[in-house]
């Protein structure tokens, strides 16, 4: 499935793959050597990535529950039956909508915070810059699971400092659907803005200073400089961080799983990833879980294809 789609991409621009040939003098005599070097990677990826993807697709077409796993009953081919069941289930659509909205909110907040702080970094002297960089590196390095427990503790109804400072008494953040999502969003933004900040900051530093000086001499405001000069010049970098964020935030698992205790009260905080996991391993509906996995895979594949198109339009050479 993956291979097919990439082939489609290939066909649109057949010239690309052959154009840059003369760059490596030894290229013509390469022979089998590159394949020798690639062999370990291809074996590992084939066995533990491509094959499981194929299996995932296969399982989603069968009736596969605990009875089949323990080997008692034969597996029966269901065709698209699992998908039909899934699409007829109202909860699936609820979860899908929640996933898209939650991921979108995370991406927007992460990018806004990351870009704003990157610009801020260019305007301060070494000490505040170092402080902010160090703090960001700390947040970046924190494992998702410890980050989740720490944020839960900060917002704990009884012993957390946040409720104390805000005077909220014993308000529970994980009880309501939106406040629970909000809490997870805070944690996700906290641990993912550093990547955006560091990358965009590196990008801004690479912009020639004459350009910025010219803009300033023409009387452009800071906001104007960002919008009309920096943002267009940083476009390639912004595309990369946006797509990366979309992909990461769409796949958020640990934070939701830990902070809302496996999807919240009555599954109110489920996202696709956790939903698939719960269907498979908690309810033993392996085939339904696999079908959800396939849906996720297809959505992310669509995002990736958009990404590839943008990269190619920018003329990036692979």
């Amino acid at each position: 499935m993956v291979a097919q789609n990439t082939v489609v991409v290939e066909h649109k621009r057949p010239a690309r793959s052959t154009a840059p040939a003369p760059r490596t003098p030894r290229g013509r005599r390469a022979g089998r050597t590159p394949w020798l070097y690639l062999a370990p990677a291809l074996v590992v990826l084939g066995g533990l990535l491509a094959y499981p993807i194929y299996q995932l697709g296969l399982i989603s077409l069968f009736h596969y529950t605990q009875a089949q796993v323990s080997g008692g009953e034969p597996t029966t081919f269901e065709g698209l039956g699992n998908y039909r069941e899934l699409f007829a289930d109202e909860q699936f659509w609820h979860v899908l909508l929640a996933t898209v909205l939650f991921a979108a909110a995370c991406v927007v907040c992460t990018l806004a915070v990351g870009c704003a702080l990157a610009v801020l970094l260019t305007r301060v002297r070494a000490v505040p810059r170092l402080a902010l960089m160090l703090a960001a590196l700390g947040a970046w390095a924190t494992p998702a699971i410890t980050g989740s427990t720490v944020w839960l503790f900060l917002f704990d109804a009884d012993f957390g400092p946040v409720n104390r400072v805000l005077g909220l008494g014993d308000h529970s953040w994980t009880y309501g659907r939106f406040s629970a999502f909000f809490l997870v969003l805070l944690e996700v933004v906290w641990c993912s803005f550093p990547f955006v900040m560091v990358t965009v900051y590196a990008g801004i530093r690479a912009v020639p200073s004459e350009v910025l000086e010219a803009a300033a001499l023409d009387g452009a405001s800071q906001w104007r400089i960002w919008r009309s000069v920096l943002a267009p010049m940083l476009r390639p970098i912004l595309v990369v961080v946006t797509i990366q964020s979309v992909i990461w935030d769409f796949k958020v698992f640990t934070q939701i799983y830990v902070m809302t205790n496996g999807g919240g009260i009555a599954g109110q905080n489920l996202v696709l990833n956790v939903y698939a996991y719960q269907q498979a391993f908690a309810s033993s509906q392996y085939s339904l879980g696999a079908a959800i996995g396939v849906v996720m895979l297809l959505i992310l594949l669509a995002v990736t294809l958009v990404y590839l198109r943008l990269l190619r339009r920018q003329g990036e050479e692979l």
Partner: protein
Amino acid sequence: MTLVSRDGARRVNPVRRFVRRPGRLAAEATALLTAAVVAFPLYWMVLSAFKPAGEIESTEPRPWTLAPTLDSFRRVFGQQEFGRYFVNSVVVAVAVVIASALIAFLAATAVTRFRFRLRTTLLIMFLVAQMVPVEALTIPLFFLMRDAGQLNTLWSLILPHIAFSLPFAIWMLRGFVKAVPEALEEAAYMDGASRTRFLWQILFPLVLPGLVATSVFSFISTWNDFLFAKSFIISDISQSTLPMALLVFYKPDEPDWGGVMAASTVMTIPVLVFFVLVQRRLVSGLGGAVKD
């Protein structure tokens, strides 16, 4: 900490030059305040790990403690087999880092220093592979590991993590391998070096910094993983890893916050150390991966 001043020491910061002084003070105050907010959760984690039980379970939490204690850490390390979990985590992470670095180095060399059919197709497939939701593959991987008889072994964690960290590692290493001049390669062959000799004795040491930066990502994703540990290590808990040990203290209804915070601290520190050690390379590496 040269993260910031790497190439900027000589050059005057372009934006800063035309910012008026009061504006800069406000900006610096904002930066410091933001740094404090961002660092606060980590501070609170370490602080709570050292607080005595009475102060943690207090409805008047204070941002300091006058009676630091190692009680929580003692509880964490006293927990059955915690040391074992730690060692397991280290073994898995180190195995994944080394294996994926070597495999990715070879693959990145192949796709940057050779021209061959399907090269672009392969590169696109590496890119696409990065997007695959790892969690969705838990189901087929579970069956794969079961059929291979590897459930409850560390292999069931090591092998999938190598596979999942490879695409990004290859993608990121490309920039580093590309940066080594062609002339050097030609000169090496001129002097009679074989391809293998060039690969390991010349290219490898030159790419090593990039390899270290790449390792951060495979290290972190492996060290942090709790889904595979939860799904594949089902009955033999002596093969479990740190995240599972942390969750022992985290019972949704009455979590032992002191234990959770101490275990979190123990789990976070190795990553922090690793990050700080390689941070400069990390930034240049990201630059290479993002735009080369």
